[in-house]
């Protein structure tokens, strides 16, 4: 937890940012129909049910309260400032949240820390379900946006964009991509076409993106009616939709699968041997009909297990709750994230690959601050690499210092 003087300092910096960068905060479409919410620095509470007729009114409110986080509703309302039951829902944008919190990452999140709220036991990595010491289930978490987490979520965003443009036929203009300001990406569709979809319809879209409930039998992997246990054919690489994705995922999996991985997905020993022995034949199969019939003795049951693995690699790991909630509040683009001091930043789809959060979402480009760092991992802001730092007073550029301050890893030690 940051001290009062650190919080004061962060808030002062945030106020400066909002004063200088007013024009960079773009209003969402139909700003007057949106509900706004603000998380406050000191009270740690949310001010909700605010509405603004334009961005001038919005800016003067932000100036008055200087919040730590700014949100608006994905929904459009007749009366955005009314109580929930009386708002009059008119529709909502389709939004996707991809956050490292909700998926395993290659870094194993060893950079995260947790402290049990009950007994004070502390540990590294993602928080456990139960405190190993006292069984408590409330934790204070300190997460860290490491570069591995960020590139993992970026890859998930890329897959999502592919699904939305190829399968759902949304034009790259309709699909907006943002860095969330912390550990992930937001993908937002604002077109009229999807606005009235109810929560059930959105859930179907979520299941589609996750590949959840997918039955390979509907995607070409099926028996013939005549011969028992004889595959008819399977999906091929050039097929559209999930057919093609299953094929691509299966190819990628077979290409690199080790004995251990094959056994892990529940294949029998004989089948594993057969696959390893016939890898070349299987991969060659892609030139024609796919590997499905290329080797005798690999049955539909085994293929289904492999396909499940294929689905996992091709699906995009979105947060299911965010997309299905038609009243959700989401962070406003161009505003600061209270956990990092970075901004939620829009990224043109074609630039996604080269987007660098620690360069392109940096809000504070001037000045330096002396802070007392309790513990910081090795990290990078713009082109400079810092740390690890432990229990030391250091002078850092404002953006790097704010990152540590917002994360509660440092305290102010007299600002310059």
């Amino acid at each position, binding site marked *: 937890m940051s001290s009062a003087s650190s919080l004061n300092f962060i808030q002062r910096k945030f106020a400066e940012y909002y004063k200088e960068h007013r024009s960079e905060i773009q209003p969402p479409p139909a700003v007057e129909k949106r509900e706004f919410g603000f998380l406050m620095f000191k009270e740690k509470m949310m001010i909700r049910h605010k509405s603004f007729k334009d961005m001038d009114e919005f800016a003067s409110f932000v100036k008055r309260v200087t919040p730590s986080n700014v949100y608006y509703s994905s929904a459009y309302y007749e009366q955005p400032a009314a109580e929930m039951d009386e708002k009059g829902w008119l529709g909502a944008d389709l939004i996707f949240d991809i956050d490292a919190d909700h998926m395993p990452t290659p870094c194993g999140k060893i950079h995260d820390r947790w402290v049990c709220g009950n007994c004070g036991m502390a540990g590294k990595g993602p928080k456990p379900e139960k405190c190993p010491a006292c069984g408590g289930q409330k934790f204070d978490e300190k997460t860290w946006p490491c570069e591995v987490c960020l590139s993992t979520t970026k890859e998930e965003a890329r897959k999502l964009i592919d699904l939305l443009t190829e399968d759902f036929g949304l034009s790259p203009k309709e699909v907006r991509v943002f860095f969330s300001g912390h550990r992930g990406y937001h993908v937002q569709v604002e077109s009229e076409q*999807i606005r*009235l979809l109810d929560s059930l*319809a959105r859930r*179907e879209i979520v*299941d*589609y993106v996750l590949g959840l*409930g*997918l039955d390979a039998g509907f995607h070409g992997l099926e028996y013939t009616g005549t011969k028992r246990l004889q595959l008819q054919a399977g999906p091929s690489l050039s097929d*559209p939709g999930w057919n093609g994705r299953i094929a691509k995922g299966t190819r990628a999996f077979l290409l690199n699968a080790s004995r251990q991985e094959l056994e892990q997905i529940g294949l029998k020993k004989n089948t594993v041997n057969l696959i390893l022995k016939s890898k070349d034949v299987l991969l060659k199969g892609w030139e024609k009909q796919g590997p499905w019939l290329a080797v005798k003795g690999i049955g539909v049951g085994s293929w289904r297990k492999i396909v499940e693995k294929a689905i996992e690699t091709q699906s995009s790991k979105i947060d299911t709750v965010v997309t299905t909630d038609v009243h959700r509040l989401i962070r406003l683009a161009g505003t600061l994230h209270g956990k990092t001091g970075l901004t939620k930043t829009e990224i043109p789809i074609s630039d996604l690959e080269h987007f660098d959060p620690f360069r392109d979402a940096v809000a504070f480009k001037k000045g330096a601050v002396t802070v007392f760092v309790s513990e910081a991992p090795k990290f990078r802001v713009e082109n400079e690499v810092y740390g690890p730092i432990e229990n030391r007073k250091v002078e850092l550029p404002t953006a790097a210092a704010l990152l540590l301050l917002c994360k509660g890893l440092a305290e102010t030690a007299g600002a310059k």
Partner: protein
Amino acid sequence: MQELSLKIEDLRGSDYERIVNRAEERVKEAILDAKISEARDVEVEVASFPIAVMLVVATADLPLKRRYALSEAKRVSSLLRNENEEKIMEIAGNFKWKIKPAEIDMPYAFALDFTDFLRNSTVLRESKWKLVNRLVLKGEVYLTLYEAARLLEEEVRRHVEERLDTKVDTLPEELTRRMERLKLLWAEKRGQRQFGELPKDVVNAAFPPCIRSLYDAAKAGRRLSHIGRFSLTTFLVNIGMSVDEVVDLFRNVADFNERMTRYQVEHIAGEKGSRTKYIPPRCDTLRTHGVCPGMDETCKRVRHPLAYYRRRIRAVRRKAPAEQK
């Protein structure tokens, strides 16, 4: 409704009797067979529909409204199945569907905009209606002729239901008489159906696996996810558990706050706030959010936790009298 009453005044001609008779018959057929017969006289058929709608609206009975909408939809869909592609396109066009003939070499007849598909598919249960099991390409879902007809049936059902979602102030005396007759018939029919009311006591043994595991977790004082808490509370409130009992269930959870918990449970039970009594999410929603721990045999036959409960209660009941002997 204003429009409709004007038309009724105009109808006082020779056809009036036939049309009103057919209107009453339509509702009667819906009550008795949940299906409305094929048309004989097209003009009577068209004219009797708005009057039938009016009769159903006047009963102000929601289950009857649903049954009537479903029956009309089934009538349309059985007509549609014998139609060719042009006719289906024409009717779909009336409902503003974005639909076109499928251009790819596959067993499909149509390509339908995915939003039109979703609006009508989410109530359908078979896994072939799940979007993830369809061919979806450039915003369009590919359908056979039969599947398009089935989705149109849903569209009609919703459409009729929307028309029924209104109130009528005064009905001409003659229609009121007919309406009362239909209400009586419906009450008789429902009387036969309602032997299976839920028992007053909560029967733990009939809980579905999802509720069982949430219930045990809450009892053991483990924290539940938001959707887990919501599912458990709505379920228990709906099978007749009191607010006090539900609040007690959460007492062991580490961050239990009696005031907050009570407020939320009362809200869900419809005793506070909007006065809506909430019901638990459907099985597939619970699956999406990872609440479903996996299905047992009964799960495969239902799509809602409450339906599971009802089914199990019935099974227990069937057994009980035999055991008493």
